[in-house]
């Protein structure tokens, strides 16, 4: 029994079958990669997991509880965090504030008044936030407006926002897309380090095979809304169907 | 039965007024995304185009009538319109009485010009600014326009009757098979109703059968990208603004025989027109028109004695009540598009 169990999930958009009978089991503490051609339904699957979309049929169990029908914030409070494909950050706030918010969310839950405390006086929370910014190499940008960051920096910020929540399950939708190679490598290291220091499970969608094969322990290949194969990285590399449908002549 | 038909008629012409005002507003607000608090002022300026034409046609020279005296006991100065002295009193008066429809000819260029100046001079700098700033600047503009009109025309309502030929009312019931004298309806209100259908149809056709509408919608969603595709969106926005101003102005011109224009009539309509547009759904022209007619008819029915007997005062709040109900049951009004002014 994995920490995340997806069973028989279907999702149609009008006539389009975006997800067809998807079954997926992610084991606690592993890094599970989901790859597949564009439009295969990977992001749709993540949308189902975080409550952005409701599947037409099927069940999604996390940690033994169903996530279906819960609001996104409730799902997050269960321990699922997500990095989006197009960065979702608080563009009007400073970089530091962007990471403070998830810190508070983790400590205080979905809603708490706290109208009379001062953000500046929250010692541990500020420390945590500073620490994560240092981890993603953004400490020097802490006072910038998040909206004025370059695209790569926005992605790093969003990663930081999710990591700082110390979720049980971290969903990463192309976390390193648009990131400079050096930072991609840093990110890989960071994710590896986090995985070693904390009990965290990750599901990652990536088209960058370097990232996938550096991190993943299991890989599910999704094509046209259905899982094609699920296997270890080694086997996937050589899988002829996968090569044809997805990898092409890519060097992996 | 006749009472119901009468209220439907009333609702239709109230509705056509709402729809026409909302149509213009939706072009600016729902399509260009500018919260234009000066829209009422455009309506008002249109109405004053009619007043201006009337005044022009009544331009007079004075003749002294020694046989009568004025309030100070001096010989009476009689104003004789030039039109009367040129064409004789009968024909002259008849011509003057056509000033409201004739004002359409003046209103179109004037309103396009006003729209152009407003957009180029002011609004274009506010497309990217927060809605709050748009509210402040257009509200300021509305006040300024209103005060300017007041300087010229005073604060009192100015009677602007319909042409003699279209004045009175017709026995509409007879056409429907009722007895004579049961359903009377003013001719001018029919004219207004038909006129608004014409304008609404025209605007729809223009936006539907040309790519203009699509480009403007695209431009509103993402000006920058549209520019990258070689389209000069500014020009189209300006034109759109001009059309919206003209629609508002024409609505104003034709409404003057129903409502004597005064300088603050725009403000009086402002809130209502926003309600109509939003209930119709942001960004939807059919929505605005539909909601205009719907609210007009609902309001007419709410003003019936039978209804008011059960719910006193319902006619005062019905529009808002219906607005609340619609917005709560349909998240984006009747036909609103997703993502327009939802943040």
């Amino acid at each position, binding site marked *: 029994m994995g920490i995340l169990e997806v069973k028989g999930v279907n999702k149609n958009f009008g006539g389009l079958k975006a997800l067809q009978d998807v079954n997926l089991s992610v084991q606690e503490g592993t890094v599970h990669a989901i790859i597949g051609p564009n439009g295969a339904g990977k992001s749709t699957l993540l949308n189902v997991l975080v409550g952005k979309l409701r599947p037409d049929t099927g069940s999604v169990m996390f940690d033994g509880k169903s996530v279906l029908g819960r609001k996104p914030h409730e799902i997050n409070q269960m321990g699922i965090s997500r990095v989006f494909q197009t960065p979702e950050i608080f563009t009007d706030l400073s970089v530091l504030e962007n990471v403070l918010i998830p810190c508070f969310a983790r400590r205080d839950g979905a809603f708490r008044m706290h109208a009379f405390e001062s953000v500046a006086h929250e010692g541990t929370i500020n420390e945590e936030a500073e620490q994560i910014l240092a981890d993603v190499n953004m400490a020097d940008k802490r006072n910038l407006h998040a909206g004025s960051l370059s695209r790569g920096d926005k992605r790093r910020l969003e990663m930081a926002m999710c990591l700082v929540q110390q979720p049980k399950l971290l969903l990463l939708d192309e976390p390193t897309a648009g990131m400079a190679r050096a930072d991609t490598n840093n990110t890989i290291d960071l994710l590896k380090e986090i995985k070693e220091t904390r009990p965290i499970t990750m599901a990652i969608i990536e088209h960058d095979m370097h990232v996938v094969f550096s991190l993943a322990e299991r890989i599910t290949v999704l094509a046209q809304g259905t899982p094609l194969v699920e296997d270890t990285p080694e086997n996937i590399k050589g899988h002829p169907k996968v090569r044809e449908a997805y990898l092409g002549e890519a060097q992996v | 039965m006749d009472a119901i038909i009468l209220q439907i008629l009333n609702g239709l012409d109230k509705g056509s007024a709402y729809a026409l005002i909302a149509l213009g507003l939706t072009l600016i607000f729902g399509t260009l995304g500018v919260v234009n608090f000066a829209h009422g002022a455009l309506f008002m300026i249109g109405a004053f185009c009619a007043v201006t034409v009337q005044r022009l046609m009544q331009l007079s020279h004075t003749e002294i009538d020694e046989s009568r005296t004025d309030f100070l006991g001096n010989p009476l100065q009689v104003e004789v319109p030039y039109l009367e002295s040129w064409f004789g009193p009968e024909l002259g008066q008849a011509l003057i009485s056509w000033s409201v429809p004739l004002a359409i000819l003046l209103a179109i260029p004037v309103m396009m010009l006003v729209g152009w100046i407003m957009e180029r001079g002011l609004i274009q700098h506010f497309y990217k600014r927060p809605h709050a700033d748009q509210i402040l600047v257009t509200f300021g503009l509305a006040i300024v326009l209103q005060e300017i009109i007041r300087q010229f025309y005073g604060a009192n309502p100015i009677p602007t009757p319909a042409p003699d030929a279209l004045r009175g009312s017709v026995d509409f019931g007879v056409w429907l098979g009722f007895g004579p004298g049961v359903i009377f309806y003013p001719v001018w209100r029919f004219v207004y109703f038909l006129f608004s259908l014409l304008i609404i149809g025209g605007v729809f056709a223009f936006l539907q059968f040309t790519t203009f509408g699509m480009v403007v919608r695209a431009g509103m969603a993402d000006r920058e990208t549209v520019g990258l595709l070689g389209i000069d969106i500014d020009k189209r926005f300006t034109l759109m603004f001009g059309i919206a101003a003209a629609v508002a102005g024409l609505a104003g011109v034709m409404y003057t025989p129903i409502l004597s224009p*005064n300088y603050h009539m725009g403000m009086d309509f402002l809130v209502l027109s926003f309600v109509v547009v939003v209930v119709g759904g942001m960004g939807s022209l059919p929505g605005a028109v539909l909601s205009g007619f719907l609210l007009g008819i609902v309001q007419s029915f709410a003003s019936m004695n039978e209804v008011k007997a059960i719910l006193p*005062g319902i006619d005062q709040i019905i529009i808002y009540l219906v607005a609340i109900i619609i917005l709560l049951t349909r998240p984006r009004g009747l036909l609103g598009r997703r993502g327009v002014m939802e943040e």
Partner: protein
Amino acid sequence: AAFTNEPTGSTVTLGFNVPQTGAYAEEGLDELRAQQLAVEHLNGEGDGGMLNTFSSKVLDGTGIMGKRVEFVTGDTQTKSDVARATAQSMIQKDGAVMINGGSSSGVAIAVQGLCQEAGVIFMAGLTHSNDTTGKDKKRNGFRHFFNGYMSGAALGPVLEQAYGNERRAYHLTADYTWGWTQEESMIAATEALGWETVETVLTPVGAGDFSSYIAPVMNSGADVLILNHYGGDMVNSLTQAVQFGLRDRQVNGNNFEIIVPLYSELMAAGAGEAIKGVYGSMNWNWQLQDEGTAAFTRSFGEKYGFPPSGSAHTCYVQTLLYADAVTRAGSFNPCAVVEALEGFEFDGMGNGPTLYRAEDHQCFKDVLVMKGAENPTTPFDNLEIVEVTPVEQVMYEPDHPMFAGGDLGECNPGE
């Protein structure tokens, strides 16, 4: 000081609180013109206007009790809140001893209450609701204008003569205090003639388009429509009723008629042709033939180029009356002024002999019944006087049920 804003220098300040923006702006500005003229006359400038015809002769053109009259103005916007704020500023900042003006009952009652609390004299401008000198009367406030009851009482006989005793009336009434008292008064007056009241319908203030209220009138069996509306509402409802062809119709064998209980010159101008032949009442009109009216119309007309409106007259007269009362009392103390004005009888200010009744501070004088002129020669005589109803006919007891419930209270001189 012995009382609020006791004038200590060589001048005395009056506060003219009128609407200068909003729907009643023109009315307010006309009041302001008259008030300014009154100040000129008090200070001995101009031709003296009604000072020459006023039966009390204590004013001599040297200001009030030798103090030169100055004035401050404010914009009420026809909102009670704002009107109180401007009145406050006149009292607190400018040291005004008297507030005069306004063109709606709500504002008048609100400001009257304020003046009572602050300890200054209030001379109400245009306010026609019975309540101003009825349930909301105050010792420090006086009203020169007539009221809804008097309109009804004056119109009654004229309507009887013109339209007979067998009419059926339909009321459209503005849905607020003034409208209600006006409707009540008109119903009382017309039912006394034997008329039947078919229906009374409340209409929202500022409705703009009254078509859905007018349409049902046609088949209600009524043959008279009474529009208890004022200002823009009256202009619109009357114009639209005419547009619906009501006046061209025959009902119960009678010509359908429309009545507007309260007329004003500006409303008449706004309604244009629609007023032709429509009856209504008025406090005063420049076409009156008495000496006072002639004198005032002349000095106003020469200064501004058009004749004064009824509300201008009210404000002008009240300013003079206040000055006169102070002079007769020999003091600016509001309580002394109240005493001098209560029960004061005079003549020469238009409308013939006039009484400021002590019991309710309502002014009693002749009331005019007007009719829209068929062939006006100038923009100023679109209304004609059809009857000057003598004061006895519009008199009522201070405890008349329509005015009951109020209490003048004590006079308040302030600090």
